[in-house]
Structures are given as C-alpha cells and as structure tokens.
C-alpha cells in the first residue's frame, strides 16, 4: 500500500505543474470572491472561512479527476487489480494519495489566504489543521470513489464536481462553521459548538470510509 502511494507521489513529483494548478485555481477563486463581494475587514471574518473552503473544495475536485488518470493509460488499472493487492488497500492508497495532493495544496494556500483576508492564522493553527485534516480525508475518500465511478463517462471533469460537491456538503458546512468558530475565538458565541462540527466530520469520514471501500470492491469486480 505504501508502494502504491509512493508511486502516485513520484508520478506527481515528475509533473509538478499539475500540483501547482489546483493551488493557483484556489487562489484565483478566492480573489474573485473578494472582487465580487467587496467585503469590509470585519465582514472577512464572517465570509472568509466560507470563501476559503469553497475554493479548496473546487480546487480539490480538479485534483480528484487525476487520481485514476495515470491508470487509464495502457490499462494499468487492470494490471493493478491483477496484482496480489487487496482491493481495499488499493482504494485506500488511492484515497491517501488524493488526500496528500489536496493537503499539499491546502498547506500551500492557507497562509496565503489568511494573509489576503488579514485573518490571524498562528493562534488557531493547531485546531485548523485538525479541521482541514477531517474535511480533506472525507472529501478524498468520497472523491476517489466518485473519480473511479465517473472514469468512463464523457464530460467527467464536469460530472465529478456535480456528484462530489453535493455529497460532501456536510463537510463544507462543518469545515466552514468550525473555521469561523476558531476565528471568533473561545470568547465567541458559538465556541461550544466546535466539537459538534468536528464530530460530524469524523462521523462522515468513518461512514464514507467504510462505504467507499465497500463500493469500490463492488464496482471493480467484473
């Protein structure tokens, strides 16, 4: 399984510009948001978390399409499936690579976003990483499965976000709410709700982690 992740990471490293493209896209989306809304600095605390997570998820769907793309050429997926690898391990390796790509993009862009929105990142960094980790894990699990389900569809670049974004709506809501609660600080009116949103994301990750492994096995058996 580690070998599979390493293979994907190596491929990605050889095409570094593919890694940069989603990050640039996320930055662009956030910039457009500021131009369109023209928020005051106070409004940015309220609107910033939403803009950040919408940009991350949109950029994330761009990365997801590529998870199975290298296996399409020369039908490498069949070879992978024939290899003595557990299907669940194969799926989890793919999801882990997807999560790492997305996490890399987030690690790159989060400081930029917080600087652009003039929000304090350092005081909340530890908990923000937890929020981002939970959201990215769930999004990558579902997104990897959906990327596989849509791999034979025409217009799949369009179909993947249409499927992935509504299905992961609970993650978007929870991540944006949790980020905003963190920004408002322990004195904020909703601080007690933080654990609720974290629990929701954790439950989402567990439920869809199991369900996606199950689903992947059902689709690959042919």
């Amino acid at each position, binding site marked *: 399984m580690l070998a599979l992740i390493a293979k994907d990471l190596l491929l990605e490293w050889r095409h570094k510009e593919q890694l940069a493209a989603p990050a640039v896209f996320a930055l662009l989306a956030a910039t457009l948001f500021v131009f369109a809304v023209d928020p005051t600095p106070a409004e940015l605390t309220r609107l910033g978390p939403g803009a950040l997570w919408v940009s991350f998820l949109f950029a994330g769907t761009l990365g997801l399409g590529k998870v199975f793309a290298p296996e399409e050429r020369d039908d490498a997926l069949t070879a992978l499936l024939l290899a003595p690898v557990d299907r669940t391990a194969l799926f989890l390796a793919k999801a882990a690579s997807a999560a790492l790509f997305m996490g890399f993009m987030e690690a790159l862009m989060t400081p930029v976003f917080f600087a652009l929105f003039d929000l304090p990142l350092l005081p909340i960094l530890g908990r923000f990483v937890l929020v981002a980790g939970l959201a990215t894990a769930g999004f990558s699990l*579902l997104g990897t*499965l*959906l990327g*596989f*389900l*849509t791999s*034979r*569809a*025409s*217009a*799949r670049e369009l*179909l993947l976000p*249409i*499927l992935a974004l*509504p*299905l992961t*709506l*609970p993650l978007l*809501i*929870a991540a944006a*709410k949790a980020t905003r609660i963190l920004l408002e600080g322990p004195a904020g*009116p*909703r601080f007690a*709700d933080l654990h*609720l949103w974290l629990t*929701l994301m954790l*439950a*989402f990750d567990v*439920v*869809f982690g199991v*369900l*996606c492994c199950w*689903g992947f096995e*059902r*689709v690959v058996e*042919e």
Partner: protein
Amino acid sequence: MIPLVIATAAAFLVALGAIALYAPLEAVQGVAQKIFYIHVPLAWCAFVAVGVLLVSSLRFLRRSEPRHDRLARAAAEVGIVFATLVLVTGSLWGKAVWGTWWTWDGRLTSTLVLWFLLAGYVLLRSLSEGPPARTARAAAVLGVIAAVDIPIIHLSVQWWRTLHPDPVVLRAGDIGGGLTPRMLTTLSISLAAFSLLLVTLIALRRRIAEAEDEVEALWHLPGRGDLAA
C-alpha cells in the same frame, strides 16, 4: 399496465374533486393552503422513490439481475420529477403564504440537495460510455451512497440553520398539527392518488428501460458492429 393507468386517472379525479370541493378553506392561508394537498404527497413520493432506488441498487449489487437495475433507473428518474415538483409547489405556496419564493430553511435546502443528488445519478447514467454492466454497477454504488448521505446532509443542514447566529425569520410552520378531519381525509385521498401515480410512472419507465436494454442487446449482436459506426 392499462388498468393501473386507469386506476391512477380515476384516483386523480377523486383527489382533485376532494381538494377543490370537499376540503374546507383554511382560515388564515385561504385557497393557497390547498397546495398542501399536492405538495405533501409529492414530497412523500420523492422520498419513497429514493427508498426504491436504495433497495433496488443494493439488490442489484448482490444479485446482478438486470431487472433490479432497471427498477433503480426508473425510480431515480421518476424521483427527480417528483423532487422538482416538490420544489416548485413549495415555492408557489411560500410566495403566497410567507411572501417569498424561497427561504434557506432546513427542509427546503435538504430537498434542493436531494434534487442535486438525483440529477447527478441520472447524469452519471446518461454520460457513462463504458460497458453497460459497469455503468449499472457504478450507478448502483452511487445510488447507495447518495441514499445513505441524505440523512447526514439533512442533519448538517438542520444544524447549519439552527446554529446560525442570524435568527430564522421564516419557519416552515407546523402545518400538520392543526388538520381538521376533512383536511386529513383529503390529504389521505391525495396521498393515495399520488402514490398510484408514482407506481404507474415507475412501472412505465421500467418497461421503457426493458425496451432500451433489448435494443442495446440487439445493437451488440455479432455482425451488427458496422451499423454502430
């Protein structure tokens, strides 16, 4: 099939008659309240369609029998029609009673997301180009995942609203509470008529799916490949 269609048509005549003539005029909302007798059964049918989608997808994944796949396909397509009508009738009623076409209330928003999920399912089926058997399996897995996700989405949307700092100005009032016996009878008749409509539409759609599969099979007969080109 024809008796089913006739029964549905007859049930609708009775239901429309009951809604127009038998159901009393609600004191506050007036005639607009009568949309309720159409809106609620539509919502009920949309959720039943999702239930059918879930069960037949699971059955298809276990047995791989094409008839379960056709039922899932039919339920999803009919479900999206009902979900669309739920949103439209809800909007009309909202405009008349609340004074607004739309409010980002938990129930409305979940219904909208349900619509997106069904639309995604139908799009996946229609855009997939691989072998039909693989498309069917992919769609069945999506059907199960979407159906499991719906309660989670509903919960998160509910929390999203209720935990929102801004007060909810407009709430979907507790309309089910104060129903008079006549209203309840009308609702039951309408519910029966719409349920019959759901069954009829799914049955018709399933028959079309059978024909589609037959055509598909003929298309792939040996020696017919040149026709496809």
